[in-house]
């Protein structure tokens, strides 16, 4: 049985629908990541799941019981959960008391409070800060205290809203490491919202993609990243080559998709005559100076029409009759003499492609 379940949940603020028809079920011990662009409704959904808000429509079940509209039951449920907000605030007291709050509100004995707070502070590496005024901490330290504050009550469900969004890479790494440790050690059910899809991929067993207030797709990280079910999801998860085509021929699962008059070989479930999008991840494309003798079914010659250096990588856009964007290392680009206007070859495997239905 699902620990948390939403049934056709919708939320409206001032007549504007923020979430629509969300039906989701999260099992005990599961790590579920909600990914989606900013403003997609991730925080609202987390707040609804934590019973901090009441949905405009639909029902939310915790442990099999609909407690959407009972204040007493909601408080009881909330006390089995914890929430780390995107921009955590510290209460104007020292670090120890900040972390102890949740336990004191649950009327735990002071000896238990002391030992649990100390353990939680140790876990996040903030034990030396116990007597510091919590409002004088840096962003990363505040985040770690917020995590300790959330973990100290040993919640059954932990909600994390963009847990590392406001941190520098080093602090973000430490926070993520702590979270990964907790997830592994305590088998806590975790629901996290993140716009950083790779973080979702690293920490979560299952991912839900929320775009424009609607849950577009849920599935394993591999399903989400390699087999998105809609153009919107594909765009969000970084599939930068989305080509409109039509299935011209089909041989078992191997389809020939006509894109701008070019034939692309792809594994597809669709039938001849279906209009589709062909999705190609940039990292699945190999650029070579000469025609590659590899096993790739798709090899196209094209001219480099754009090159952008991003850190150690170069994003290369090639016109093969259709635009194709790929990535090579900066060193490889230099060694292979890739420059603007140069004719090169792009190759990719039929199995690396994914097709989705294109309507209209």
């Amino acid at each position, binding site marked *: 049985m699902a620990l948390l379940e939403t049934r056709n949940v919708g939320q409206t603020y001032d007549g504007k629908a923020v979430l629509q028809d969300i039906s989701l079920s999260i099992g005990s011990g599961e790590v579920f990541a909600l990914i989606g662009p900013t403003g997609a409704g991730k925080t609202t959904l987390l707040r609804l799941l*934590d019973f901090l808000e009441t949905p405009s429509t639909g029902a939310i079940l915790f442990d099999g019981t609909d407690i959407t509209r009972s204040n007493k039951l909601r*408080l009881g449920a909330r006390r089995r959960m*914890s929430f780390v*907000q995107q921009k955590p605030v510290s*209460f104007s007291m020292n670090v120890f008391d900040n972390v102890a*709050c*949740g336990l004191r509100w*649950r009327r735990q004995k002071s000896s238990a409070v002391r030992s649990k707070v100390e353990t939680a502070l140790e876990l996040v590496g903030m034990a030396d800060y116990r007597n510091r005024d919590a409002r004088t901490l840096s962003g990363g330290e505040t985040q770690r205290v917020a995590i300790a504050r959330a973990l100290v009550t040993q919640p059954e469900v932990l909600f994390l809203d963009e847990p590392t969004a406001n941190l520098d890479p080093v602090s973000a790494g430490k926070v993520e490491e702590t979270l990964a440790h907790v997830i592994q050690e305590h088998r806590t059910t975790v629901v996290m919202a993140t716009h950083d899809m790779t973080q979702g991929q690293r920490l979560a067993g299952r991912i839900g993609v929320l775009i424009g207030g609607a849950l577009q797709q849920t599935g394993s990280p591999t399903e989400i990243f390699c087999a998105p079910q809609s153009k919107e999801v594909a765009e969000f998860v970084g599939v930068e080559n989305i080509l409109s085509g039509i299935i011209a021929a089909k041989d078992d699962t191997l389809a020939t998709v006509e894109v701008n008059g070019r034939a692309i070989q792809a594994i597809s479930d669709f039938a001849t005559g279906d209009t589709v999008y062909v999705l190609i991840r940039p990292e699945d494309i190999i650029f070579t100076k000469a025609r590659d003798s590899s096993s790739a079914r798709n090899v196209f010659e094209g001219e480099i029409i754009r090159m952008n250096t991003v850190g150690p990588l170069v994003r290369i856009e090639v016109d093969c009759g259709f635009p194709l964007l790929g990535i090579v290392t900066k060193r490889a680009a230099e060694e292979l003499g890739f420059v603007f206007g140069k004719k090169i070859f792009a190759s990719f495997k039929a199995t690396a492609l994914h097709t989705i239905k294109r309507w209209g």
Partner: protein
Amino acid sequence: MEEIWNGFVKAIQLIVTLDPVVMEITGRSLAIAAASCLLASLVCIPLGSLIHFNRFPGKRGLVNVIQTLYSVPTVVIGLLIFLLFSRAGPLGDMGLLFTPTVMVIGQAVLIAPILVGLTITALSGVDNAIPETASALGADGIQAAVLTMREARFGMLTAIVMGFGRAISEVGLALMVGGNIAGFTRVLTTAIALESSKGDIELSIALGIILIAVALIINIALNRLQQRK
């Protein structure tokens, strides 16, 4: 000019030698203002919190009325209290008119809007994320409210200090319901008014200096509180 200067010198002497009359009037002033402040705080801080934490129609209008009453003339409250506690008034049987008790009640009523209003302002100044976070960490409504009040404690202290300042410095109400009875209801402000009209300039100046010193201490306390916020 010389008369004023001599008055000033004698006033300093009265203060330095801890003149019994000066000390007695000062002590009573502080005691009445403190008692009225305590009484008003006990009622107004919970009342202000109740208004802040609850949603009801007309809330904004009520807050506007409360803020308008900050500067209600002291004589208007004086008249109201006088009518309530005068022999013919509804509370006349209590026989409290011209006693320190009625002065405490009157001053508490006078500063009530300041305390209620500034309590609401202090609580409104607390980041919404504080009660939200408390709820998310398992606090019930009352626990979240108590935490919010704790966060607003310096703002609330400011309200109390400002209420004390208004109570100790007002004269109209103290005169009307206290009666300026020597050794009984005479306070700093009423004594200054009376002694000046009698021509006892030294005592007036001495009491004035004390009143200004009290105002200065209040101001310093307020500044400190503002900084700690």
